[in-house]
């Protein structure tokens, strides 16, 4: 006998309790503290902050803990919190040239003013599992330099002086805010960069990679990758100079790409740009590749790869949107499915009838006429 599906409320409550229990895990080990996540899973924290568009390491760590380490879920939690926050002020543009450098490398010059700084990187580590960490070995403290690094000039500025690289200047226009206004395709580059900055890392990585394999190749060189802390400043009415309200850690990647040029314009290198909160190097590199790919039309290139199609790239970059819509397939679709079932059964009946009477025209099935 059919019993109407009741008790959804109780089922949901029980599911949440079970989930909380699973998140806690075995009570024999100590509960994970948010501060531990923040301090020891800093790259996860950085990714969640970047894709949630909210710089708050503590809340990002909380989101990671609450999501049992599911990064897409953690991004969603932080994003949903972000959307409730009031707008207090707008910052002046970050000056990444004035960054307190922690890491800074260039693949285009051997030696650069200010020097190459490897910083805390997984590059050049041998990817061998470190069983000492299973045995809770002590981690040695790092070697420290005698003095802080001075601010370093941007490598691309050096090329800029010679005119070898296309110039980029602030045209002073008010930036579009993708968190407040709906996308209006085609969108300008500043808007694209906003969308890429919160785009899913894996997605951007795959698209950036596709350009390297020939689907819209753009001949990139890693001009400069830098990581460090920059001052966040706001303009206050009573003050003549902007006021610093704190520092945030960011990663920046400036790609140098092969040149364009025309009869009127001398050939120049072009740029791709990537920026993200926290230590997010892979993301910024992928972002820079995709940014450059999306400039195809502007630079007079014929789009040949998916990474060059702005609507395709941008409309599917957001993990909160894509995860939501894919997961909604779990919701009931009884009604739509029933509609399809009814049609399919009818089509099959008619198909069977036609096979018995080969002369009959498909569009004059009698049962359809009377419907």
């Amino acid at each position, binding site marked *: 006998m059919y019993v109407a599906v009741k008790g959804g409320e109780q089922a*949901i409550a029980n599911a949440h309790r079970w989930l909380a229990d699973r998140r806690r895990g075995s009570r024999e080990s100590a509960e994970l503290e948010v501060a531990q996540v923040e301090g020891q899973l800093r790259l996860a924290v950085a990714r969640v902050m970047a894709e949630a568009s909210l710089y708050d390491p503590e809340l990002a760590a909380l989101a990671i803990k609450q999501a049992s380490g599911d990064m897409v879920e953690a991004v969603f939690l932080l994003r949903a919190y972000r959307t409730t926050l009031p707008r207090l002020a707008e910052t002046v543009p970050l000056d990444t040239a004035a960054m307190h450098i922690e890491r800074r490398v260039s693949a285009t010059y051997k030696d650069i003013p200010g020097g190459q700084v490897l910083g805390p990187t997984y590059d050049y580590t041998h990817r061998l599992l470190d069983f000492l960490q299973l045995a809770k070995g002590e981690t040695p403290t790092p070697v420290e330099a005698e003095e802080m690094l001075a601010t370093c000039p941007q490598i691309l500025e050096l090329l800029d002086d010679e005119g070898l690289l296309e110039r980029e200047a602030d045209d002073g226009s008010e930036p579009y805010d993708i968190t407040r206004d709906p996308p209006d395709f085609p969108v300008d580059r500043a808007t694209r960069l906003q969308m890429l900055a919160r785009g899913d890392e894996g997605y951007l990585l795959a698209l950036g990679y596709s350009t390297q394999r020939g689907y819209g190749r753009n001949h990139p060189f890693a001009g400069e990758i830098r990581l460090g802390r920059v001052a966040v400043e706001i303009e206050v009415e009573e003050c003549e100079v902007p006021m610093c309200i704190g520092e945030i850690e960011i990663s920046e990647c400036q790609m140098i790409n092969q040149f364009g040029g025309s009869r009127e314009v001398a050939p120049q290198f072009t740029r791709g740009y990537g920026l993200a909160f926290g230590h997010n190097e892979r993301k910024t590199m992928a972002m820079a590749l995709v940014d450059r790919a999306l400039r195809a039309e502007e630079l007079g290139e014929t789009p040949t790869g998916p990474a060059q199609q702005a609507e395709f790239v941008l409309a599917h970059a957001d993990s909160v949107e894509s995860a939501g819509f894919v997961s909604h397939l779990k*919701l009931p679709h009884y009604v739509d499915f029933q509609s399809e079932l009814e049609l399919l059964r009818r089509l099959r009946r008619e198909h069977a009838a036609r096979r018995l009477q080969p002369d009959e025209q498909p569009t004059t099935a009698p049962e359809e006429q009377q419907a």
Partner: protein
Amino acid sequence: MNDYSDATTGYNFAYLDEQTKRMIRRGLLKAVAIPGYQVPFGGREMPMPYGWGTGGMQLTASVLGQDDVLKVIDQGADDTTNAVSIRAFFERVAGVTTTSATAEADVIQTRHRIPEQPLRQGQILVFQVPIPEPLRFIEPSEEETRLMHALEEYGVMHVKLYEDIARHGHIATTYAYPVKVDGRYVTDPSPIPKFDNPKLHMAEALMLFGAGREKRLYAIPPYTRVESLDFEDHPFEVQQWEEPCAICGARDTFLDEVITDDRGGRMFVCSDTDYCQSRREEVA
């Protein structure tokens, strides 16, 4: 140190802040003024996933008043998990009275169905919409489809329906069946079964459509002409069942198929649980 000790309370009435609600209501006014036209709006992240009704929820939040009675259905039923979840959300953040009785509700948020009982003047039906663009599966680019709407260039849609007929002998669209609103805009009625399409025509209630992920909203105001696209020799038709509802005996409702055993046994029951129950009570 962040102070988030009050994180579960302290939200504005119906979750969204008043500025956001006002922005959405402005969009809704435009949508009502241009029936069937998709109005872009600054959709916000909701604390539920995109695709689970965030568009509908933002519209509901924007039109809901403190004295309104809210009904939430999914697949026609009040007790499906997502309907339960959305109803619980508004009980928590708006403290409004909720009901499962269609006639008692001021605002009804729905996914995939229109209630069987005709809606009356003053009621608002809010649809959750996954893909608001009826031309999307013919033309994936938003830039292009916007232009097609502006030029009223809807030939491709008829070509698509015609191709169905050529291939299957029928128009093979059974839900989200495209309509023309007030003789102008081809509009997606959301994934309701085409069975429900006739209820859109000259309806007494205000019908609002919200697509959160796509950040679009649109409306069918009361007493608006809504025609389902068809051909003279292939007129629009709705689904029919050979048997009545196994519970209330209704012959004029949309029926869900329920599998009763693993030997092909099945029965058909009303998808609108409130309608089915009230009919049973009448009989009893």
